[in-house]
C-alpha cells in the first residue's frame, strides 16, 4: 500500500519524463543519426519557440484561462519587429542598437497585446476563448495588412547579424536553448516560489475562494495574459532571426501546439494545477515527434499527422499512468 501511494505521486511528475525517454529510445532505434550533436541541438533550438510560448500558456491555463491568440500574436510581433528594424536602418548606425530597440519594442507590444486580452476577459467579462479567438483574427489580419498580403522581410544587412541569435551557440548549446532554459527557470520560480504564482493556482482552483482570500483576481488574471504576451515576444525575438520574415502564415497553429505542450506536461486545462517542467518536456515531446517522423520515410507522408496524433495520445496515456489506475 504505502509504496503504491508514493509511486502514484511520483508518476504525476515523472510521467512526462517517462514519455520523453520512450520517444528518445524510439528515435535511437530508428536512426543512428538521431543522437548526433547536430540533431540534438536542432531539436533543442526548435522546441524553444513553442516551449517559451507554452510556458506563458502554463500561467494562463493554471489561472483558469486560455489564449488562442498566441500564434497570430507571434506573427504580428514579428512583423512589427521587422518593420521597426527596416525603417531604422537609415537613422541609426549600429545594427546591434537597432536590434536591441526592436527587441524592447517587441516585449512592449507583447505585454500590451496581453493586457488587451486580459482586460477584455476580466473587465468586459467576455469568455477568454472568445476574446482570444477574436484577437487572433485581428492580429492575423494586421500582419497580412502590414505585409500587403505578402511577406515582410528583414533587411539582409541586419538579418546577417541578428541571425547569430538563432544560429549561434554557447558551450555547445544553441542560444535559443539557453533562452528557453532561462524562461523556464524564471517561469518555474514565478509559479512555484512567488505570491503571484500562488495566486494563479488559487484563481484557477476556485475563483470565489481566491476573491475571499483578498486576491486581486482580475489583476492577477490580466497579468497572466501579459506574461503570455511577453513570452510570445521572447519566442518572436528568437524566431525572427531564424527565418528573417513574417507573413500571414507565420506562427499558424502555435496556439494549439502550445496548449498541447502544456497539457502533455501535466497541467490541468481547467486550471488550478500547473507544472513548468512538465510544459518544457511537453514542448520537447512535440518537437521530438516531428523529428522522429523525419528520421525515416517508412511512413507515408500523408500519414504523418495520424502518427503524430497517436503518439501524443499515447504519450499522455503513458504519463498519466491510466493503465495502472485502471488495474487496481
Amino acid at each position, binding site marked *: 500500500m504505502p509504496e503504491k501511494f508514493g509511486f502514484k505521486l511520483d508518476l504525476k511528475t515523472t510521467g512526462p519524463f517517462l514519455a520523453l525517454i520512450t520517444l528518445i529510445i524510439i528515435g535511437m532505434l530508428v*536512426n543512428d*543519426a*538521431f543522437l*548526433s550533436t*547536430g*540533431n540534438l541541438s*536542432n531539436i533543442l533550438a*526548435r522546441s524553444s*519557440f513553442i516551449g517559451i510560448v507554452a510556458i506563458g500558456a502554463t500561467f494562463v491555463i493554471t489561472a483558469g484561462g486560455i489564449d488562442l491568440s498566441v500564434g497570430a500574436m507571434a506573427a504580428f510581433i514579428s512583423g512589427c519587429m521587422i518593420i521597426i528594424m527596416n525603417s531604422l536602418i537609415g537613422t541609426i548606425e549600429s545594427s546591434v542598437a537597432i536590434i536591441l530597440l526592436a527587441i524592447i519594442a517587441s516585449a512592449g507590444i507583447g505585454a500590451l497585446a496581453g493586457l488587451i486580452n486580459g482586460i477584455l476577459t476580466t473587465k468586459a467579462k467576455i469568455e477568454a476563448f472568445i476574446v482570444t479567438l477574436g484577437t487572433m483574427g485581428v492580429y492575423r489580419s494586421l500582419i*497580412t495588412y502590414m*505585409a*500587403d*498580403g*505578402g*511577406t*515582410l*522581410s528583414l533587411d*539582409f544587412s541586419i*538579418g546577417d547579424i541578428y*541571425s547569430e541569435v538563432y*544560429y549561434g551557440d554557447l558551450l555547445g548549446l544553441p542560444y535559443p536553448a539557453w533562452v528557453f532554459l532561462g524562461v523556464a527557470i524564471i517561469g518555474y520560480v514565478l509559479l512555484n516560489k512567488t505570491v503571484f504564482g500562488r495566486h494563479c493556482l488559487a484563481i484557477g482552483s476556485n475563483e470565489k475562494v481566491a476573491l475571499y482570500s483578498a486576491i486581486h483576481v482580475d489583476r492577477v488574471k490580466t497579468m497572466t495574459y501579459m506574461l503570455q504576451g511577453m513570452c510570445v515576444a521572447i519566442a518572436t525575438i528568437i*524566431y525572427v532571426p*531564424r*527565418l*528573417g*520574415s513574417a*507573413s*500571414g*502564415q*507565420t506562427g*499558424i*497553429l502555435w496556439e494549439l501546439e502550445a496548449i498541447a505542450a502544456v497539457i502533455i506536461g501535466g497541467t490541468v486545462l481547467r486550471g488550478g494545477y500547473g507544472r513548468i517542467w512538465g510544459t518544457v518536456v511537453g514542448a520537447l515531446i512535440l518537437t521530438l515527434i*516531428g*523529428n522522429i517522423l*523525419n*528520421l525515416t*520515410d517508412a511512413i507515408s*507522408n*500523408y500519414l*504523418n499527422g495520424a502518427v503524430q496524433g497517436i503518439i501524443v495520445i499515447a504519450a499522455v496515456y503513458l504519463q498519466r499512468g491510466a493503465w495502472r489506475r485502471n488495474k487496481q
Partner: protein
Amino acid sequence: QTIGVSIPAATHGWAGGLNFHAEATKQRLEAANPGLRIVLLTANSASEQANDLEDLLAIHHIDALVVLPFESAPLTGPVRNVKRQGVFVTVVDRGLSEAGIEDVYVAGNNAEMGRVSAQYIKQSLSDGGDIVVLRGIPTVIDEQRFDAFMAELEGSNIKVLDNKYANWNRDDGFTVMQDFLARFPKIDAVWAQDDDIAIGVIQAVRQARRQDELFIVGGGGMKEIVKRVMDGDRLTPVDVLYPPSMIATAMELTALKFLFNVPISGRYILGSPLITQENAAEYYFPDSPF
C-alpha cells in the same frame, strides 16, 4: 547518393498534385537507380519546412536538395545554410528572395499565369465587361498572380467589380461566389485563379442558374477542369496551366546531375500556356489526383 526533397504537405488540390508527382518520381528514380536514395519530407508551415531542411542535413546527410519553399522569404536563410554545407540545391516554383543561392531553378511563372488569364478575358470580352476575382491565400504567389493580372487589364474596358480571398479552397470558392452572385446582377466573367476555387465557383453559378451569362477562368490544370475544357463546356472554355509536375522535372534534373554528372545549372522556367479545347488532351492525366 542521397537527394532530399522538401515540399509543402498536401493541403490543397495543387499541393496534392505536387505530392503525387514527387512520390511517383521518387519511386521511379529509386527503382531505376539502385544507388540513389531519395528522402521526401513534407511540411505544414514555413518553420516546419526549415526544420525539415535541418533534418535532411543532420540526419540524412544529403548531397542534393530539391526544395519547393512554402514561402520564399522565410526559407531563404535555411536554404542558404544547406547550400553552405556544399549541397547541390534545386529550387522549385518559388524563387528565394536572395539571388545566387540555388544551382538550379525550376519554376512555373506566376506572373505569366495572371497575365495569360487576363489576356484571355480581355480578348473574350472585347466589348468590355464586368468581372469578379477570387484570390488564393494572402501570400507572395497570390500577389504575383493578382498584380500581373491587374496590370494586364489596365487600360482595358474591363471592370473588376471586387476581389476576395477564397483560400485555394472549394468551399470558400463556393461561398464567395454565392455572395458575389447575390451582390452583382451582371457578371461577365470570373477569374478563379485556381481550379479548386473554380470547382466551387461552378457550383455556385449553377445554383444561381447563371451559367449562360458568364465564363470562368481557373488555373493549375486540374484534371476535372481540363476534362471540361476538353469537352467544350461553355462555362469553363479554358484553363491556365501551372503544372504540379514541375517537381518531377526538378527531381529528374537533379538526379541527372548526380548519376551521369551532366553539367546542369541555371533556370528552367515552365510557361503557363492556355489550355483550350484544341490542346486540352495534351494536359489531361486521368490517373493523377490533381
